[in-house]
């Protein structure tokens, strides 16, 4: 599939080049297409359910249960940054500030270019650091 898309894309680019008035000069600098704004990953139904129940437990103060649900979810989708972030929040609530910081950093490692998620992780990290001071 990759090579076919590539060939079609090249063809289109060349055609596009022909369509506009060609300007002689050095090869254009490669244009980087930034991915569209983050819409949120689609979690599997299983993980969505566990995430929801974890949030409910955390809100009710049942923190170990919340953490257990999140760990179950992480066994299904270990690369999901939202799960790691939620776990970081629970650690923060539990007063485990060192773990809150590390877990938020782990969330960042999967966050890619999701700036909203990263920003939230940064907030958690800063809260954890402030609490430890």
């Amino acid at each position, binding site marked *: 599939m990759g090579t076919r898309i590539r060939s079609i*894309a090249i063809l289109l680019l060349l055609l596009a080049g022909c369509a506009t008035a060609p300007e002689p000069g050095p090869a254009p600098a490669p244009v980087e297409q930034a*991915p569209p704004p983050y819409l949120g990953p689609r979690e599997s139904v*299983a993980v969505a359910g566990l995430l929801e129940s974890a949030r409910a437990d955390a809100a009710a103060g049942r923190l170990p249960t919340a953490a257990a649900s999140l760990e179950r979810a992480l066994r299904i989708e270990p690369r999901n940054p939202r799960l790691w972030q939620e776990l970081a929040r629970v650690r923060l609530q539990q007063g485990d500030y060192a*773990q809150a910081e590390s877990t938020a*950093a782990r969330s960042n490692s999967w966050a890619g270019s999701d700036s909203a998620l990263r920003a939230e992780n940064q907030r958690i990290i800063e809260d954890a650091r402030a609490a430890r001071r």
Partner: protein
Amino acid sequence: MARRGRILRYFSYALLLAVAALAVFALELDLRVRNEFEGRRFALPARIYARPLELHAGLRIPQADVEDELRDLGYRDVQRDDQAGWFQRKGDELDIAVRPFIFWDGAQPARRVRVAFAEGRITELRDAEGKELPLARLEPLPIGGIYPAGNEDRVLVRLGDVPKHLVDALIATEDRKFFSHMGFDPRALVRAAASIFSGRMQGGSTITQQLVKNFFLTPERTLRRKFTELVMAVLLEAHYGKHEILETYLNEIYLGQDRDRAIHGIGLGAQFYFGKEAKDLTLAESALLIAMVKGPAVYDPRRHAPRALERRNFVLRETKDQGFVTLEQYTVARASPLGVSPRPVMGTSPYPAFVQLVHRQLRRDYDEKDLRSEGLRIFTSFDPRAQGAAERALAKRIAQYDKERRFGQPGLEGAVVVTDTQSGEVQALVGGRDARYRGYNRAVDATRPVGSLLKPAIYLTALSEPARYTLITPIDDGPFLWKSRGAPDWEPQNYDKKFHGMVPLRTALAQSYNAATARLGTEIGVDKVLANVKKLGVERELRPFASTLLGAAEMSPLEVAQMYQTIAAGGFRSPLRAIREVTTQEGRPLARYPLKVEQAFAPEPIVLITSALQGVVREGTAQSLKSFLPAEIAAAGKTGTTDEQRDAWFAGFTGDRLAVVWLGYDDNRAARLSGAAAALPVWGDLMAALVPEPLALAQPDGIEQVWIDPQTNLRGDSQCAGALELPFAQGSAPRERSPCATVAGAVVDTVDTTVKKAKSWWERVFGR
């Protein structure tokens, strides 16, 4: 007259003395009875469970594996609408009646689920009404325990949970007058005494007496012992009610042996022989258990079926003759087969290496005494599939090597560790060539020189300084002499006894060149490297000598796994753990062992070293992995061979699992072993059986992928001959373009990058 009076007086003194002695004797026995009775009721083994299998749509698992797990759990393939614990196969679907279970996070009721499979994964999960289910958790497989003295195992039952016909059968057969006598039955005793003379020794013991008999460690059959037991039986009846005695008896009786595990009590008996709970026992099944009371080895239904059947029918007849069951019930029961379930021999555990690890981790938090008596329920990360694959892979290759004698004499030993790459949970542990052997656990306790397995730490340290070293930096694989005052000169040799001149850094690792690595290590500094080894999670103190760099250091397979775990988890260190939660016997949560991560390294050098380790597999010493796993898996790993080839190692990981394999002889003899030839095939077999996830490199901000022309070591494009796309820390890739790079090439690569980015965005937003 006076003399008669004196005789009378002496006689009464003697009588008084005798009575006093008897009283003291009785008091002693009384104390003993009470102590034993109280103490005996509470010693329950800790039960260890594997991870519960969590079914959900999308899970990569073959249908056969789910069926295996269900069978191991004792699920029958007969549909019984009134009971849980069965499954039916309908082509590509499974209809399962999941049993209820009390997990750490609460009680889960019984439920029916329908699971559909296709191409090795679960495609659908529905409940009995056909509604979609997000998740279905099976109960976890019991894999062992920590037992009280004598490896006694039991499952406690309350008298109220025991079916009436079982009690009836017991009374009818063993002690008809149980409810009326005071501990012993005089008429039965007389009969027994008489039987000594008739030659056929009959028991004559009441249930109470039999219970008392169990309080003694040695099975003496002397008259004195019989008398003591009699007195104790009377005392027992004096202190405790009939129901208490009966209940204790039912939980105490010895019903058989499972290798080194002693089966006590009808609760465990029901499980062991029929795969069900005591309360679900039928009349025929109850009769069989009662039949075995007289001699569980002699009347073992699995070994002596005809004899067992005959005695069971005798019990049934007695039960009918004494009016406890009707003629019809008797006829039906008598006609039924023994009905014993096929059960794998388990002993105290078929997985002693893993159980030993669990026991050790528990000892940190619990008293040994409590572990053996409180009936704790321990939930672990054990994965029976991973364990099975690891055991089979090791056994197969060791048998092959023994036969070929390619590697020294027969009797080669080995060890395997399998973990989850992202959580650090230990999934499988094999302690030796005989996985069932409970003894030396090589996976945890055999410390052996690790050879080249330490090299990635050196290269990781180098790659942490991108201004000095990248994956393509040329390093010198020329002769290297290390002189150090007070130590002999050290001149490492390469495996092929050649020196290769200037080679790219990643090639030196891929081909495991000793000279280049030793030079690199000493250039960076042994201390820096050892500091990183510590950060990777190795707690052991390593000697700060140059020779340590090439693996004179000794570690256990578990420690090696910890080291590679940190790399596999993107630089985040999690201590390897086997236990998830602990509850009491009733299911009340006691402790949880949470997932812990610590960022030990920045993501960028980890991406670089992982790419280099993928190179080991793609074009280096682990190339033969091609014949085990498809190229798309892109596994990362490192072979290890030690001095005089005494040890063969392979440590590697895919997207979801990490495994370390070690082979060698316990007496350390030279064995002509090589990591690639001996250990790698075990790793390959094991991973191939587990359908691994491809390893995808993370793409942190600080990394850019650059096409390199290997001829010139300059920036090229995908169209250059032999071009390679490699990760570089931002700004460390060569700026100069190679002559092979063209405009067309640049365009192609730009389009490629765009398409890739669009694809990954698509996948993130819309799922696979």
